C-alpha cells in the first residue's frame, strides 16, 4: 500500500518537474520571437545574467533608448530566471536558428559560454560581451573602465571629501576577488602619488560580501582608529554596512564614505551623509556601448584603440595591452544625494 503511494508520488513529481522544465524553455524563447523579425530590420539580442532585477532592467532601458535613436534596429533582452550558466547556454543555443545579426552578452561565467559563442560566430552572428575580459569567442569585450584607474577615481572622490588629509580604510568583498583588490591597490597608488596627507590605516579588510560583516568590521575600525575620516567599499553591500555603522556612531559629518554600490542598496544612506558618494557604472550605458560596437562591426568596421562609440564614457575606448579584444571606457559614474533620482537601479 505504502509503496504504491510512494511510487505514485514519485511519478507525479517527475511529471511536474518535466512540465516545469518545458514551461521554462518555452518562456525564454518567447521574448525573442515577440520582438518581431521583419526582414528589413536588423535584430540584436541582449543576453544578460538573469531576468528581472534592477540592474538588467536598467540595461534594457539603455537598449531601447539606443534602438529608438538607431532606426532599423530591433533590440530585445532575454535571460534565464536565475544566474546559471546552463540556462544562458540553452538560451543562446535556442537563439542560433533565429539568426539575429548580433548578440550582446553579459556572461554568468565567460569560460562556459566559449563553446556556444564560437558556434554563434561560425553562424555569422556578431558577438560583443561585457564583464568578460579574456573571453575568446567575441569580437570585443567592452568594460566600463580599467580597474586600477577606477580605484584612482574613487580615491580622488574620497580625497576631495576628506580635504586631502586623514586616515582611511578600504574594504573588499574578499581578499580573493580580483577586481576588488585591483580597485583597492589603484586607490592606494593614487593616494601615494597625489595625496601625501592621506594614509591607509591597515591592509584591505574583507567583508565576506556580507553587509552584517561589513558593519561589524566598520565598528571595529571606528573603535580602533578614532581619527579615521574615510572609508572606501568594494562589494555593493560594503558601504551599506559601513554607512550604518557611521550613522549609529553619529559621525555622518566627520567621516567620508565612498564606494561601489547601487542606489537600491545604499541610496537610502545618501540622504543624511552616512554614505557620501556611490560609484559604479551605469548598466544602461554599458548596454548601449555594446550595441554601438555591434553596429560598427555589422557595418563592416573594426573596434580599435581610441575609438569613439558615441556613448557617454565610451568616447575614447582604450585597448587592453595584454588582451587584444578587451576594451575599456572611462564610464564610471558618481551618485550623490543630488543626482540619485537619475539612477533608478
Amino acid at each position, binding site marked *: 500500500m505504502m509503496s504504491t503511494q510512494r511510487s505514485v508520488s514519485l511519478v507525479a513529481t517527475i511529471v511536474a518537474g518535466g512540465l516545469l522544465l518545458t514551461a521554462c524553455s518555452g518562456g525564454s524563447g518567447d521574448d525573442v520571437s515577440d520582438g518581431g523579425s521583419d526582414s528589413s530590420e536588423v535584430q540584436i539580442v541582449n543576453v544578460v545574467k538573469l531576468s528581472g532585477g534592477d540592474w538588467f532592467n536598467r540595461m534594457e532601458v539603455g537598449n531601447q533608448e539606443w534602438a529608438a535613436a538607431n532606426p532599423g534596429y530591433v533590440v530585445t533582452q532575454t535571460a534565464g530566471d536565475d544566474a546559471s550558466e546552463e540556462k544562458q547556454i540553452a538560451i543562446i543555443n535556442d537563439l542560433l536558428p533565429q539568426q539575429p545579426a548580433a548578440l550582446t552578452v553579459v556572461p554568468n561565467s565567460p569560460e562556459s559560454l566559449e563553446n556556444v559563442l564560437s558556434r554563434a560566430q561560425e553562424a555569422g552572428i556578431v558577438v560583443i560581451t561585457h564583464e568578460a575580459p579574456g573571453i575568446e569567442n567575441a569580437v570585443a569585450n567592452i568594460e566600463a573602465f580599467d580597474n586600477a584607474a577606477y580605484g584612482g577615481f574613487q580615491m580622488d572622490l574620497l580625497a576631495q571629501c576628506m580635504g586631502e588629509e586623514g586616515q582611511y580604510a578600504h574594504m573588499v568583498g574578499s581578499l580573493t576577488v580580483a577586481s576588488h583588490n585591483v580597485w583597492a591597490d589603484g586607490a592606494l597608488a593614487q593616494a601615494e602619488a597625489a595625496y601625501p596627507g592621506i594614509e591607509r590605516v591597515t*591592509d584591505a579588510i574583507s567583508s*565576506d560580501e556580507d553587509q552584517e560583516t561589513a558593519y561589524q568590521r566598520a565598528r571595529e575600525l571606528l*573603535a580602533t582608529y578614532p581619527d579615521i575620516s574615510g572609508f572606501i567599499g568594494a562589494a555593493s553591500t560594503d558601504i551599506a554596512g559601513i554607512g550604518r555603522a557611521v550613522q549609529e556612531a553619529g559621525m555622518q559629518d566627520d567621516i567620508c564614505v565612498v564606494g561601489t554600490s547601487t542606489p537600491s542598496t545604499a541610496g537610502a544612506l545618501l540622504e543624511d551623509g552616512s554614505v557620501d558618494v556611490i560609484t559604479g557604472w551605469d548598466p544602461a550605458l554599458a548596454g548601449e556601448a555594446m550595441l554601438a560596437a555591434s553596429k560598427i562591426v555589422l557595418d563592416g568596421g573594426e573596434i580599435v584603440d581610441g575609438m569613439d562609440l558615441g556613448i557617454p564614457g565610451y568616447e575614447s575606448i582604450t585597448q587592453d595591452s595584454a588582451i587584444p579584444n578587451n576594451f575599456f571606457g572611462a564610464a564610471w559614474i558618481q551618485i550623490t544625494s543630488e543626482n540619485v533620482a537619475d539612477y533608478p537601479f
Partner: protein
Amino acid sequence: MSTAVADSSTVRDRMSALWRRYRGENNETTLLLLILALVGVMAIVEPSAITLGFFGDIIRSGIVTLALALGLLMIIISGGMDVSFPAIAIFAGYATITLMQSLGVDGAVWPFVVAVAMGLLLGSLNAVLVARYKMETLIATLGTQVIIRGVLIAFIGSVYISVLPAQLDAVGATSIMQLGGTQVNVLVIPVLVLAGALAWVLRRTMFGRSIYAIGGDKESAKRVGISVKKVQVAIYLVAGALAGFGGMVHVVLSRHASPFEIVGTELNVIAAVVIGGALDSGGRGSVRGTILGVVLISLVQNSLIRLGVSSYWHVFVVGLVVLAGVAIQARSAAATHRRTRILERLETAA
C-alpha cells in the same frame, strides 16, 4: 590548564577532584578560562582596545549566532546534525518582510510571530524526513537547505530590500542600554529569555531528558519507553521555529533584508555549539556552554582589527581558535570515555 594541575603531584588528587567539580559538565570552566585568557592577552597587547563598547560589539555580533545556535544545540544533543537552519532563518526573515511589503502592513511584534510560524512549517520538512523516513539527519537537512533556499530565491524574491517597514525598523533602532559607544539592542532580551527557557527545558523536563537519552543511545531510550519519533518531530519543529526567530532577529538588527545572507555562516554556529561542549555523536551539550562558545567566536572575530592583525591572517587566526576550542572538547570526551552525564553528575556530587 588541566595538565598543569596534574603535574603538581603533591596535591594532585585533591586538585583533580576539585577540578572535576568546577570544570562543569561540558568543560564550561575551561572555556571561560580560555575566553578570559584571550581578553587578558588583548589587555596586555592593546590595552586601549578593552572598552565597554568592545563588549557591546561582541553582544551585537553574537546575538544572532546565539539565536541560531539554540535550535542546533537541541538537534546535536539528540545525536543529529542540522545544516538547514540558515536557510530556514533567512527564508522566514525575508519572506515575512516581502509579505509585509506586498500587503502594505506594518508591525513590531507580530512579524516575529509570522517568522516563527514559517520556521515551524519549514522545520516540519526536516521532521518528516528524519522521524518518518529515518533519513540521516545531515543528508536530510542538506537537501532541505538547498530546496528552501531555492524556493526562496525563485518564488519569494531575490531583490535586496534596503528599508524595512517603519515600525519594524524602529525595533532595530531601539536599545535597552548603552555600553560605551555601542547601543545594546532590545532584541537581546527575547534571545536570552529563549536561551533560559531552553536551558530549563533541557534540564528539568521529561522532554529535555528524552533529548539527551536519544542522543546517548537511541535503542536504550526506546526500551525505557521514550517515543523516539515523537521527540524527534518535536525537536525539529522547535528548531525550525527558533531558526525562524533568529532569521527575523538578523533582519531587524541589520535593518535590511537580503535573501543571500545567513546561508554560509552555518560553520560559525556549528563551531560555537561544538566548542560549547555538544558532542557531535550526541548525548551531551548545554545552553551555558553554547553561550560561551558563541562569546568565544564573537570575541575572536571582533578583536583582530583592534589587535592590529593584518586582514590576510584573520581567517587563519579564527580557524586556529576554533580548532583549539574543539580540541579541548574532543580531548575531554576521549578522556572521560564517554561516561554518561547522569553518572558523572552523581560522581561530582559525591
